[in-house]
């Protein structure tokens, strides 16, 4: 066995002509064996990692996929449907999830994008380091702690009810760091020549950022927002604490209960009656589908409009 055999298929072959290593071919069996073993282990690691992915998707599709093909699923709510009855849909929960996600994005995006602009375009010295560190801390805040914080502010301190808007506030905390980090990355990719060309023409800095830098990185920023949305749409912990479930359509963020897909799953998760169990898995499949669509949209946009560097 020669080194060329061992490394065949590697990325390094391009820079390392075959046969250049014929000078030393002796290799002990033990080393060759260990090398082969390591290769097997890595392939096995990948195979093992794929098992849960395939298994989860398979379970969700086989248990909940059928409901999604029924048109009622996308047009009806669960109003008046009991756990023994087949039927009803998830439109109330889908609407709730989308409304809350939208409201969250509207609040989180300006803060996150401006913070990223600060970090990349203005940030110098101590404050920038503190901001960057704080964003890291925010990244690491467990969703239940964010929910508790909003509960402490919204319900305990101000005495408001548990409504959809409070959920959105908790989700804002979870969405901001994702969007800050991705926007930062995209702004850094904008070539400095563009900024300098703009300055050379006498354009003030703020206009350079608003008209040159941000438009150049626009698709990347949108991707970041979509990925942030994908992250928060699956969040359940804030909903458990701040957003009680209801079976009817509800679109008011500031009053009353607001159903969402995660709470729809949570509501009936201990149920044993088959129609309810089916709907739980159907809601799970719907949620995964929505999140996948957002992820795919994000990736497509980033690929279409990546800044040329």
């Amino acid at each position, binding site marked *: 066995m020669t080194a060329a055999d061992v490394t065949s298929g590697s990325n390094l072959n391009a820079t390392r002509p075959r046969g250049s290593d014929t000078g030393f071919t002796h290799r002990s069996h033990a080393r060759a064996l260990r090398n082969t073993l390591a290769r097997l282990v890595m392939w096995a690691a990948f195979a093992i990692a794929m098992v849960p992915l395939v298994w989860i998707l398979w379970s969700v599709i086989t248990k909940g996929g059928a409901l999604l093909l029924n048109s009622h699923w996308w047009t009806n709510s669960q109003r008046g449907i009991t756990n023994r009855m087949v039927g009803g849909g998830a439109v109330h929960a889908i609407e709730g999830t989308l409304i809350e996600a939208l409201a969250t994005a509207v609040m989180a995006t300006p803060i996150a994008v401006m913070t990223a602009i600060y970090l990349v375009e203005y940030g110098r010295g101590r404050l920038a380091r503190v901001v960057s560190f704080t*964003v890291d801390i925010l990244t690491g805040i467990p969703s239940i702690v964010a929910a508790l914080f909003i509960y402490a502010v919204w319900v305990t301190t101000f005495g408001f009810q548990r409504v959809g808007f409070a959920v959105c506030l908790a989700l804002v905390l979870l969405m901001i760091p994702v969007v800050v980090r991705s926007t930062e990355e995209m702004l850094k990719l904008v070539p400095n020549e563009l900024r300098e060309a703009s300055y050379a023409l006498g354009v003030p800095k703020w206009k350079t950022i608003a008209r040159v830098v941000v438009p150049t990185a626009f698709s990347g920023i949108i991707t970041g927002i979509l990925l942030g949305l994908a992250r928060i749409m699956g969040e359940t912990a804030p909903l458990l604490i701040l957003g009680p479930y209801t079976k009817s359509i509800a679109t008011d963020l500031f009053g009353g209960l607001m159903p969402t897909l995660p709470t729809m*799953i949570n509501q009936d998760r201990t149920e044993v009656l088959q129609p309810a169990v089916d709907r739980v898995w159907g809601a799970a499949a719907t949620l995964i589908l929505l999140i996948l669509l957002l992820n795919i949209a994000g990736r497509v946009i980033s690929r279409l409009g990546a800044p040329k560097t």
Partner: protein
Amino acid sequence: MPTITGVSSVDELRDPEGHGPLQGDRASTGRLGDRLFSGTARGASLLIIAIVTLVGVFLLSQAIPALANDKVNFLTSTQWNVDASPLQFGIANLLWVTVLSSAIAMLIAVPLGIGVALFITQYAPRWLSRPAASMVDLLAAVPSIVYGLWGLQVLGTHMDGIQAFLIKLFGWIPLFKDAGIGAASTILTVGLVLSIMVLPIVTALSREVFAQTPTTNMEAALALGATRWEMIRTAVLPFGKPGVISASMLGLGRALGETVAVTVILSALAGSAPWSWSMFNGGETFASKIANNAAEFDSPQKAGAFMAAGLVLFGLTFVVNAIARVVIERRKAFVE
């Protein structure tokens, strides 16, 4: 694409004369627009700092009255009785279950994540490398409640055999003692599910640092006659070590704070249940304790007890994430 570290090669971008990018006051004209815009950007940043500070302050301010009324030791007591008029609550149980389930998750996810990251960056044929990375990332897109549902109703039904086997083999160790809980809702099952949830985090960051290994180092190792594995051991792994540590820390932060999957899977025990070290026991983590009792926040006293638990969780994840940050910062300094 965004990186988890927030560090990219672009950070080091310099023009040929060695000047950094034109930034700060040098590029600003001091006009109204400039002042407004930079003011808004700075304001947004300060807002984030304020929010994070407030999280700590609010939790603390609500936890302190409850802690002051706590009649048992908060750190070492296993009781959780917030209905009694002198409160009695301690976090020993929660801490143990949280740490044990996270430890199981890390024991599985870290080696597996490193293996997958090495596979993607070093072993996978070129056509497979990108799709493989996307597929592992897909694991991060599955919502935690779906993980919980799947863990309890699908994975859980296959745990009986494993549990029986482990108990038969190691049952004499307290950690493996039979606790009489259904195999689907034990700490072990939670740990397994958490390991799957943490895997994409560990893999993504490890992959990033492995891919940054200087080609010259790798070529040097190969030129000295190293096999591929020896090259990885001598060039890739030492270079990526800080990144892997920080990836594991970020994953650990996620595992410690995971709420819904744990709440769904783990069977909460009655308050009178005896203390057990076993991984086949039920119980509650900090996060699942809070989630399970969301309906009990009616009085400030009771809510305060849960805020105290939330505060400990916040502190734990804060420390873990700060360590991750420090490790990766040190590496940055080293590379420069």
